[in-house]
């Protein structure tokens, strides 16, 4: 089993902690001039997303987590699982609701997502930074004010709700930044 010593600790390193894969966010070396050395680390549990702290004695070894990120195409959902495909190998994996999490509202078929695999199974699905989605519902009545100030809520085809400028209407495709859930622009017609 692969393992890492505390002197290999750095941001982004994937380790196993209490049976869950975790990613090191911050690693601080703590040592009295004459005394025991410690590594105080901030870690994200990749399954729960929870951030926790932990102190290790320097020199200890910790089991490595077999975790890697890969770009995969979102195919479809069947109500229980969301299916993704590796565009190079055509290999498919299914992600459960916990792995898809908040990303659900941005998933559009064919889009390329970043999937984090632990021992080959998806644990995190991240949508593309920008997605193009069609507005399925928004208040059509507000005209006159086209200055763009204020804005209104719009429901998108995936169910996500974002604030859009007043001039944007039902049926239009818009570009959204998924990190902030903010409207970027009208999408150009292809």
């Amino acid at each position, binding site marked *: 089993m692969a393992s890492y010593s505390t002197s290999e600790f750095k941001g982004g390193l994937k380790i196993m902690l209490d049976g869950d894969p975790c990613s090191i966010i911050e690693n601080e*070396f703590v*040592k*009295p001039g004459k*005394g*025991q*050395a*410690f590594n105080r680390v901030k870690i994200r549990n990749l399954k729960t997303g929870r951030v*926790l702290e932990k*102190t290790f004695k320097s020199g200890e070894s910790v089991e490595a987590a077999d975790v890697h990120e890969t770009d995969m195409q979102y195919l479809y959902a069947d109500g229980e699982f969301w299916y993704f495909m590796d565009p190079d190998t055509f290999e498919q994996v299914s992600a459960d609701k916990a792995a898809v999490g908040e990303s659900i509202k941005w998933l559009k078929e064919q889009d390329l997502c970043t999937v984090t695999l632990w021992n080959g199974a998806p644990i995190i699905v991240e949508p593309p930074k920008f997605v193009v989605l069609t507005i399925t519902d928004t208040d059509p009545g507000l005209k006159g004010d086209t200055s763009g100030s204020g804005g209104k809520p719009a429901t998108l085809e995936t169910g996500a709700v974002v604030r859009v400028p007043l001039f944007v209407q039902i049926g239009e495709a818009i570009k959204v930044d998924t990190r902030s859930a903010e409207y970027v622009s009208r999408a150009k017609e292809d």
Partner: protein
Amino acid sequence: MTEKPDWRPSASLEMIQARASLLARIRDFFRQAGVLEVETPVCSRFGVTDPTIESLTTRYTGPTAPQGCDLYLQTSPEFPMKRLLAAGSGPIYQICRVFRDGELGRRHHPEFSLLEWYRPGFDHHALMGEVASLINRLTQAPLTVEKLSYHEAFDHYLQIDPHTANLEQLRDCAVGHEVAGAGELIMDSRDAWLDLLLSHLIEPHLGETGMTFLYDYPASQAALAKVRDGKPPVAERFELYLSGMEIANGFHELLDAGEQRRRFLDDNRRRAAEGLPQIPMDETLIDALVSGMPACAGVALGIDRLLMFLTGCNDIRKLLAFDITKA
């Protein structure tokens, strides 16, 4: 460290200037105090036996050592400076580079600058006074001075007696104060648990508003300090903290050659038990103590950390011209 580093310095030009100015003011202070500046070898055939400090080594081959001999890079200039004291140097100071393997972080770097000085006739309290005068010479406005014994600090912040608590009580204290992961740490020495409590729970409070001196350490952490008999016996050792950061470590120095030898041997026994390399103890220091060293106090002060404090910089690497990743 295999990638070719960016050629540009780690530190800003302002920081490089701040260091130069700090060094000049330190030298002024000691010139006015009548303390002699000295230089001693960076490389020695003897190393430091302390099991919590690892030395870097290098090798010399040439006249006097045609087959080559291993040399230890100093982790502090303490031993040769004490030999100068024994030879009658009087008060001395040194500013030098020291080296410690395995130490890298916001407050640690494998090579760093140390200011070390010795005062014949001083005890650790008198030397704390001089450290405070030096610091106040270097700060914009004078800082308040707080002195806490090691016992008082543990009693005040953790309500535990560091001299009598057993290993389980120290562990419970760490777990109770939510040191993350303390419950799973495997450490069979009381001192390691005291280090955990001090570094995680007490240190952040020390020197919050001024200078805090911690003094009279457990005898088991005497290092090279004199142990004062009493209940319990304590090591006449001190540390200075500024803004939660350890800045200096000083001793009312051990003079007893036999006791010094026992501590070196004991360090190497602990090293053996922990699977660490054996280090040749400095026999020349023991000879100097046998010949007689004046009663004195000495202190080592981290110049880089002091510069961090004075400039408000939170990472030692940002005040080194080139940190180890660029060296």
